[in-house]
């Protein structure tokens, strides 16, 4: 299994990855609390970006409503914990199940009726907005007044119930992100991964090669939505409060996709690099603005917008592809003409 995963991966890429992982594992030893929370945020976006990337980057279906799956994951696990005392690790499979069911419904409706491209994107937004308004009136999860998880001052880390200090959350999200990375790597090299890319590149040509495009698009949305749900569980137990207005807000969905787009859609490293750059830069900007007393609510997001604009205009394929060529990690060549 492991040999198969590693087969064909260049040695210097493995060394690079091992180095990066070692730094990330050791980081809490050197980093202060603030830096750890920034790293948590980075890894959180790397994870959700990776999950979104399966649907858009691999299979070519643009979702602008991934906050829906985060939100469903968050609300499911939080409600189970608050109402029945069921811990997050048992809540997680339930959350995944609900998220997958919802993703499958959206996928079935869209792909069965040939809804693609921008129409699909708008359908995903519509579902997310629909859910947001629905949850505003959903009393079991406290509606618009917000669902809160009990918080105390923790002296020790309780991994079973995900109650504790930032360092514990850091290792949890690091493990999730590493798992997501390995899984995406495996998917990309599997038959499913090849078929997704074929659909992304040219759906009619893919069908002419015997690929049931409906089936593989369904697989993509099911895996992507299922993978997004644990991020929601993490979100709920890390932040301890959930409001429909925030959780299902359209900008939440946009935040998820910014990382992979800036890093490189459809690449394995894109979501990771994008998350590092975007979150790192925006935190630095926040610091700067606060230091100069210019901290207004919209400033950070204007920065997001400008980043996105510049990258989309200057590097339409993201930052990773040129770096990959530089590091000789690109298996595809463009012949000189």
């Amino acid at each position, binding site marked *: 299994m492991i040999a198969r995963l590693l087969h064909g991966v260049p040695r210097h890429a493995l060394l690079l990855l091992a180095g990066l992982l070692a730094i990330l594992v050791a980081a809490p030893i050197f980093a202060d609390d603030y830096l750890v929370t920034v790293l948590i945020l980075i890894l959180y976006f790397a994870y959700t970006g990776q999950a979104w990337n399966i649907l*858009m980057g691999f299979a070519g279906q643009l979702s602008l409503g991934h906050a829906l799956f985060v939100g469903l994951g968050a609300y499911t696990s939080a409600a189970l914990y608050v109402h029945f005392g069921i811990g997050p690790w048992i809540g997680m499979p339930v959350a995944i199940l609900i998220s997958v069911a919802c993703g499958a419904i959206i996928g079935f409706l869209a792909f069965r009726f040939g809804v693609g491209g921008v129409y699909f994107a708008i359908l995903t937004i519509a579902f997310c907005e629909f859910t947001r*308004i629905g949850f505003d009136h959903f009393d079991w999860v406290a509606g618009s007044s917000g669902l809160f998880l009990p918080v105390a001052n923790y002296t020790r880390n309780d991994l079973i119930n995900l109650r504790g200090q930032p360092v514990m959350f850091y290792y949890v999200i690091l493990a999730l992100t590493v798992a997501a990375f390995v899984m995406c790597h495996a998917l990309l090299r599997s038959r499913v991964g090849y078929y997704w890319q074929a659909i992304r590149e040219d759906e009619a040509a893919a069908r002419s090669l015997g690929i049931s495009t409906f089936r593989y698009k369904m697989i993509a949305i099911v895996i992507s939505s299922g993978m997004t749900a644990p991020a929601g569980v993490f979100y709920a137990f890390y932040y301890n409060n959930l409001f429909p207005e925030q959780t299902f807000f359209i900008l939440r969905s946009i935040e998820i996709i910014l990382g992979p787009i800036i890093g490189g859609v459809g690449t394995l490293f894109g979501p990771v690099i994008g998350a590092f750059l975007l979150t790192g830069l925006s935190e630095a900007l926040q610091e700067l603005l606060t230091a100069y007393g210019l901290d207004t609510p919209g400033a950070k997001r204007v920065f997001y917008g400008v980043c996105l604009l510049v990258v989309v205009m200057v590097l339409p394929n993201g930052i990773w592809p040129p770096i990959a060529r530089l590091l000789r990690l690109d298996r595809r060549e463009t012949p000189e003409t």
Partner: protein
Amino acid sequence: MPAEIYLNVAISGLLTGLVYGLMALGLSVIFGVVRVVNFAHGEMMTVAMYVAVVLFAQLGLDPLLMMLPIAALLFAVGYAMQMALINPFIARPEHSQFMLMVAVAIILVNGLLIVFGPDAQTVQTSYAFDSFAVGPVIVDATKLYAGLAAILVAAALFAFFQFAPLGKAIRACADNYTGALVVGLDVKRLYALSFGLGAACVGAAGAIIVLIVDVTPPLGPAYTLLAFIIVITGGLGSMPGALLGGILIGLTEAMAGLFFTPSAKSMFAFAILVLVLLFRPQGIMGKRLT
């Protein structure tokens, strides 16, 4: 509830729907010609709304009188945006264009947030509480003026595309891009004009709608979505479809607010969108997709 209430609410929804329709008309013109999905449509609308609010608050200028100047301003903004940002993206993949517009939308919405803050801004005209009684039905004066203004602008746009040589050239360009190039039309300029016209529609719609709605920055994304729902419902690229879709959504929202709770009204607009996408993806007035 007495029957007049339903009628009152229906008429109010219809008049609001006409303004929605004008906003969606702008989106439809842009998509129909330039084939670019303007994801910053609602954000441009809020820009127009804030301009109207500022003009009213600072200079006491009535938004209805300012409708045409604001439309002209938005026309210039749209023209410049198409020339500078979107024309280089014409040959790019759909999602790339989409992300470009998302970026513009994020910058606009948060730029407004920085300048004007999160609180709602409103316009109080001298006729804000006037109304007309037609038999048992009471019609709100502001909404009546708003609806009439929307019809006026829409009619002018229809006439432009039907009779003006430039309008015909734009239509030719929308029907056949290569053909337009071959007969020597300056396609880039026509695209910019179309985007400008679409932006002028939202400009006028924004100036009108401040009479009815208080403006906050997050209204931008909400209106973008609403414009999409209307245009898809009416039929992408169909101008009468956009107006019809606007009226339909306006009516639905008004009725949902009456029967359920006003805060849940947009759920019904989404439900309509889902139904249309599933059973008539080309929209009510749209041509059959091949």
